[in-house]
């Protein structure tokens, strides 16, 4: 027969100060854990929500990212004529030969970073319906105009509607703002591939994007792009390509995990401390419980439960503490693409649950030894103890 949960709850309430201090201590560890994971999750969500499943994106074989890819014009033009490409609303094949360049821009706050300018072909915008115009208008090819994503416009100087961005001798006017939701495109500035090429003296392309007519055509296209000796490109579906870019968050993830584990060790010691104190001061109670007929196991279970309650309380507190972070936009450099990526912290229910589970582990580790100690106390001795 087990000791009722109410007993543990009341005990925690009686030892208020100690309980609160331990709960907050564990809460802080959990908060750090959940916050880091929310950052990683934010980056992951940005990349996995990017892309239409029928789109095919090709970069140079061996390149790590679009900005680090160079495709000779011959290869790009050959890719354009492949069979199986879907037709756009204007009746032409839905394909876009694109250039990407990063420019060093100052943040509105402080410091600077590389911001990506993507030069698109005619079909480029239709291939990416996620980007919707929210202010001004789309750039007109040939006039050195830019349409900037909402997040970049807010975070970088000279990027807001009506402002002028200067790259060397070229002056670009910002004529519109687009919203690309939470996709990778939300960290970009768009213009026409021709204008970008002439401003940066580039004849080469960075990537080729196209929409396949159907799933079979898509498989065929990917195979052709890789095998055709004129091209030899690394082609994937657009979602698959952006999924590979989530590797960008690996360093943060490793760092966050290491910090969280070290903090958890510290918190587990603290929890153990609290539980030992609880056991020590309740010697008589334990003896009474034993005298009432509760088994050793029941007592051990009861104390472990109490430790778990303490820890889970901390987990919930820590998780709630991090909730305000949900949706906060921030940016860091994607080292694979060597440019700014903006993302939103994502505190998902799953992460919250992971945080609580993480706390529970701390509670278990901290609670088992004291609980065993309580269960081993001899009732007679414990009764006598003052």
């Amino acid at each position: 027969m087990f000791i009722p949960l109410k007993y543990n709850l009341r005990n925690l309430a009686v030892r208020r100060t100690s309980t609160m201090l331990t709960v907050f201590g564990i809460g802080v560890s959990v908060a750090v854990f959940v916050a880091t994971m929310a950052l990683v999750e934010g980056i992951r969500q940005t990349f996995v929500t990017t892309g239409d499943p029928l789109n095919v994106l090709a970069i140079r074989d061996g390149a790590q990212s679009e900005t680090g890819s160079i495709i000779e014009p011959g290869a790009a033009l050959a890719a354009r004529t492949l069979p199986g490409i879907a037709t756009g609303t204007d009746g032409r094949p839905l394909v876009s030969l694109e250039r990407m360049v990063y420019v060093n821009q100052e943040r509105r706050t402080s410091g600077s970073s590389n911001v990506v300018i993507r030069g698109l072909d005619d079909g480029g915008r239709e291939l990416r319906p996620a980007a919707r115009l929210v202010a001004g208008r789309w750039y007109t090819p040939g006039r050195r105009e830019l349409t900037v994503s909402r997040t970049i416009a807010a975070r970088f100087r000279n990027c807001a509607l009506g402002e002028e961005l200067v790259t060397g001798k070229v002056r670009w006017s910002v004529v519109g703002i687009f919203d690309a939701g939470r996709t990778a495109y939300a960290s970009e500035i768009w213009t026409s591939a021709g204008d970008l090429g002439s401003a940066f003296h580039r004849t080469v392309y960075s990537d080729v994007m196209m929409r396949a007519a159907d799933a079979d055509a898509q498989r065929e296209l990917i195979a052709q792009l890789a095998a055709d000796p004129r091209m030899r490109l690394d082609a994937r579906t657009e979602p698959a390509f952006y999924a590979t870019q989530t590797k960008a968050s690996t360093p943060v993830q490793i760092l966050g995990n290491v910090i969280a584990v070290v903090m958890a060790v510290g918190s587990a010691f603290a929890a153990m401390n609290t539980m030992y104190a609880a056991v020590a001061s309740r010697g008589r109670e334990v003896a009474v419980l034993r005298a009432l007929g509760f088994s050793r196991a029941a007592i051990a279970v009861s104390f472990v439960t109490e430790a778990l309650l303490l820890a889970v309380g901390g987990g919930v507190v820590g998780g709630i503490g991090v909730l305000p972070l949900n949706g906060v936009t921030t940016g860091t450099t994607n080292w694979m693409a060597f440019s700014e990526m903006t993302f939103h912290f994502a505190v998902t229910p799953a992460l919250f649950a992971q945080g609580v589970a993480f706390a529970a582990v701390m509670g278990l580790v901290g609670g088992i030894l004291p609980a065993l100690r309580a269960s081993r106390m001899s009732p007679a001795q414990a009764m006598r103890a003052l």
Partner: protein
Amino acid sequence: MVKLILKNALRNRRRTILTALSVAVSLFLLVSLRTMIIELRGQSLMSEQSARRLITRSSVSLQLPLPLAYKERLRRLEGVETVSEYQWFPCYYQQPREPMITIAADPGFAGTDPDYPVPPDELAAFRADPTSALVPVKMMQRFGWKLGDRVTFSGTVLPFDLAVTIRGTFTGPAQNAPITHFSYFNELARRAMPSRVDRTMAFLVRTRPGVSPAEVGRDIDAAFANAEAPTLTESEKDFTLGFASMLGNVALFISVIAAAVVFAIVLVATNTMSMAVRERTHEIAVLKTIGFRPAQIVAMIVGESLAISGGGGLLGVIGAKAFFTTFDIYQLTSGIVQHFNVTPETIGLALALAVGMAVVSAIIPAVRGVLRPIAAGLRDVT
């Protein structure tokens, strides 16, 4: 009195050890976090010499290379001692793909910097062979390379490979990039990518001793303000700091975590001290009865906290220093983190913090314990 404090601290040995360990783990983490921030800012790379090294690149983008013709113009500018091309070549080495960067530079420049010494015979061999490379000593160890080895660096951005012979090695703060001849890079570019020939990502400029590098930098940018590609010249330090600033809020994020860690330790230590005081309500009343002044008793409890948290803190700080001295972070992280120097300031700061937290965490429980009327304290049974 000191004896009493120590006796008290050791009375509940398990609690003392657990608290001290908890503080030690946290201090270890704090020292690591602070070191991380320092290293992110590239401070280990800074030296007296590095102030004299300037990097001149396109003001628009690192992706817009500068014409080689700039080299001669740079060399003629006042205050400039030597100029070298500075071209990154992102690549990977063999299988499994090990991503890295090699730097193509002027062979006459390599080995002349006191920060990066090269043995004279190796330097001569390197300069004589255009398809050779100088490799950082730590990298030689990591890949098990020997002098005379042939290695191939396959380009990930540019469509060609550098096949080089290792002719020399160098020590110095930056240990993550082999150096190759710029002429060889340029030849390969001529064959594989004609649009990219006779251009370099940036120039490395060393100023003469005694002149202000910042002024030389301004002169350079003024000289090229109306040229085909305007330049941006920064000290090597600012160039490195620029990458740290690209990281955005990461430093802030780490600082917030560090603050959270401090907060957590205070909670843990406070908990321990209030437990200790609660247990001794009776005793404190007795001490007061026999004439100890409240201030003395508070001092005693604070002293005990200092002994526990201070001891734990010391353990954590020494542990961190020992850990990062014993283990080579360069090898542990496959060369991604080059340095992890725990500075004396960091150690001092961490210890001061441990002492501060010990005092803060003891004050409230101590005062609360002392303020209790003697009679109430004596009546207390638990």
